[in-house]
């Protein structure tokens, strides 16, 4: 059919895959450095270096150092890595599915659903019967249930005869989010002063509550979703040319849609459940990576996970030392840093590449 010339150039103009792969490598290294940073820096004077020296010499750590490193910083670091990776990957996935660089999990009702769940737990938690008093599990579980429930409902609404209409999902998502926000508003009306403060703090997000118990519950599912995202890459690449073209190229479009939505609902739902509302990571990270190495999802998804993790860990380190021994909610930081950065990208890009 086609004659393949043996002397064709190895790297073609327009092929950004090599760049994307070196970026992956660079991000991996940065992530390692960031992680060490995340373990070493904190409000207390516990030194990672001394602790490692002690361990190497066979000495036992003091109880306090052990608590700080093992029960505070390490679970917090891992939670930050997972949540950052999950949020950025979810953003990239949804942007691919909706073919829009501005899509975020809010579009499929995750954020509003999680807020409603969390607010319900905060307001009604105290009056629940004993059996449902779950301690610190209550709010995360309610948030996850809210996020997951909203997305499944939305998926049901938008799916007819085995086909999910992305446009219906978008519109119904706006309606459903508005409804959930109205109910959250109703709850804030019912809430007393302390509960109101809890709700607003929850919405600001924080990794301060990270612990092994939450991490061990959320981590397997988030990792599963991140793995699943990898196999969705080719399908999402196809979708960039529209659903029909994707189908013509052999993409099982409905399967890709379903998996993407479930994956995002689970990963974001869990992230939001264990860390509250953290904005902008899901939009800024994939957008930046698309500018650097192109929109090919085979690289975009993995790079988003890496950069999302890096960004969140750095933001968390800043949040815990900037006003130590007190702490700034991380959602404030990501929005304060992410907002202007995003505007800068948009202004710089205007007229160069029309998104």
């Amino acid at each position, binding site marked *: 059919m086609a004659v393949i010339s043996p002397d064709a150039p190895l790297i073609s103009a327009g092929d950004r895959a090599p760049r994307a792969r070196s970026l992956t490598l660079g991000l991996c290294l940065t992530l390692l450095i960031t992680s060490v940073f995340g373990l070493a820096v*904190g*409000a*207390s*004077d516990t030194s990672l270096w001394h602790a490692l020296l002690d361990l190497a010499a066979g000495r036992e750590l003091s*109880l*306090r150092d052990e*608590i*700080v490193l093992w*029960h*505070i*910083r390490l679970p917090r670091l891992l939670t930050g890595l997972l949540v950052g990776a999950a949020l950025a990957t979810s953003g990239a996935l949804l942007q691919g599915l909706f073919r829009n660089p501005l899509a975020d999990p809010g579009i499929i009702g995750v954020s509003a659903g999680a807020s409603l769940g969390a607010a319900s737990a905060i307001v009604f938690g105290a009056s629940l019967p*004993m059996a449902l*008093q779950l*301690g*610190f599990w209550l709010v995360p579980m309610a948030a996850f249930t809210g996020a997951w429930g909203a997305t499944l409902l939305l998926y049901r609404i938008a799916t007819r005869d085995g086909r999910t209409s992305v446009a219906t999902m978008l519109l119904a998502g706006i309606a459903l989010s508005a409804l959930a926000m109205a109910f959250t508003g109703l709850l804030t*009306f*019912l*809430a*007393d*002063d*302390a509960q109101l*403060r*809890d709700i607003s*703090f929850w919405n600001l997000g*924080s990794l*301060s*509550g*990270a*612990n092994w118990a*939450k991490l061990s519950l959320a981590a397997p599912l988030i990792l599963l979703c991140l793995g699943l995202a990898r196999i969705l890459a080719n399908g999402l690449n196809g979708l960039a040319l529209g659903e029909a073209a994707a189908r013509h190229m052999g993409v099982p479009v409905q399967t890709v849609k379903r998996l993407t939505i479930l994956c995002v609902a689970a990963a974001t739902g869990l992230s939001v459940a264990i860390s509250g509302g953290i904005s902008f990571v899901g939009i800024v990270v994939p957008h930046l990576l698309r500018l650097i190495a192109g929109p090919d999802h085979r690289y975009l998804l993995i790079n988003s996970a890496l950069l999302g993790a890096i960004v969140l860990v750095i933001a968390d380190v800043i949040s*815990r030392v900037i*006003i*130590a*021994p*007190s*702490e700034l*909610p991380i959602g404030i930081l990501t929005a304060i840093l992410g907002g202007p950065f995003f505007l800068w990208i948009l202004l710089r890009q205007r007229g160069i590449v029309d998104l």
Partner: protein
Amino acid sequence: MTRPAPMTRPAPLTLLQLAMTLALGLVTALGIAQRGIADEPVRIVSAGGSITEIVYALGQQDRLVARDTTSNHPAQALELPNVGYVRRLSPEGLLSVNPDLILAEEGAGPPETFEVLEGSGLPIITIPMGFDLPAVQEKITAVAAALDVPAAGAALVAQVTEEVEGAQKAAGLHNQRILFVLSMQGGRIMAAGRNTAADGIITMAGAQNAIDGFEGYKLITDEAVITAAPDVILMMQSHRPGAITADDLLSHPALSTTPAGRDQAVLQMDGMLMLGFSVRTGQAVTELANALATAGH
């Protein structure tokens, strides 16, 4: 009083449970006492404004190493490192000041933070909250016990009791209706209902809370404001820019139609003094009662 508090959850008590709870309480009390003797805490974090005041009143302020955001009295307390908002304490932030005891108001948290700290063996004593004289007495006693200064505690209890009872007697009983406004949000008023510090201080000053339809602080509608028909509006003094002022309240359409609005009867008092339910509560009752006597009627 250490976490987890076994008695705070409503449950039908069987005899056995009662016995066990008593035993547990005894052990806990002994534990505190023993630790007090063997290993007196000298690096204390106070998470709660009323606790900080009590520590100062007991003369034990040298043992404080950090405080929370709500601890703003006395002014020297502001020089201590701030570990954040009392319901959002960060575990490493608390540990970073090397405390050997945390005194926490009931409601301080989040639970995750206290769970980690308990794992580190750091004692946390929860001080009960309440909005009447017995609650103040109980608070002082609990703080004094935790600091192992029971005699000073008893003296302080006696002094505060005398002040409060004297102030209450002087205030007498009258039927002024007071609306406590915590804040305004988008033109709506967040008012104090039953079982709040504001309700407590109003009652102790011999007046009536104009709101009795709900518990806690809630946003209320304009019609509820009119129905409440307050004679006096009470609010916290704030020097922060953007905080609501008496003029804001008086220009509120619903409030302006009430007796308080017509008489321009708006009282402002220091928030911690008025709502702290701590050592200065007697002073708070006196100030409020005096202000009420001149305002409104």
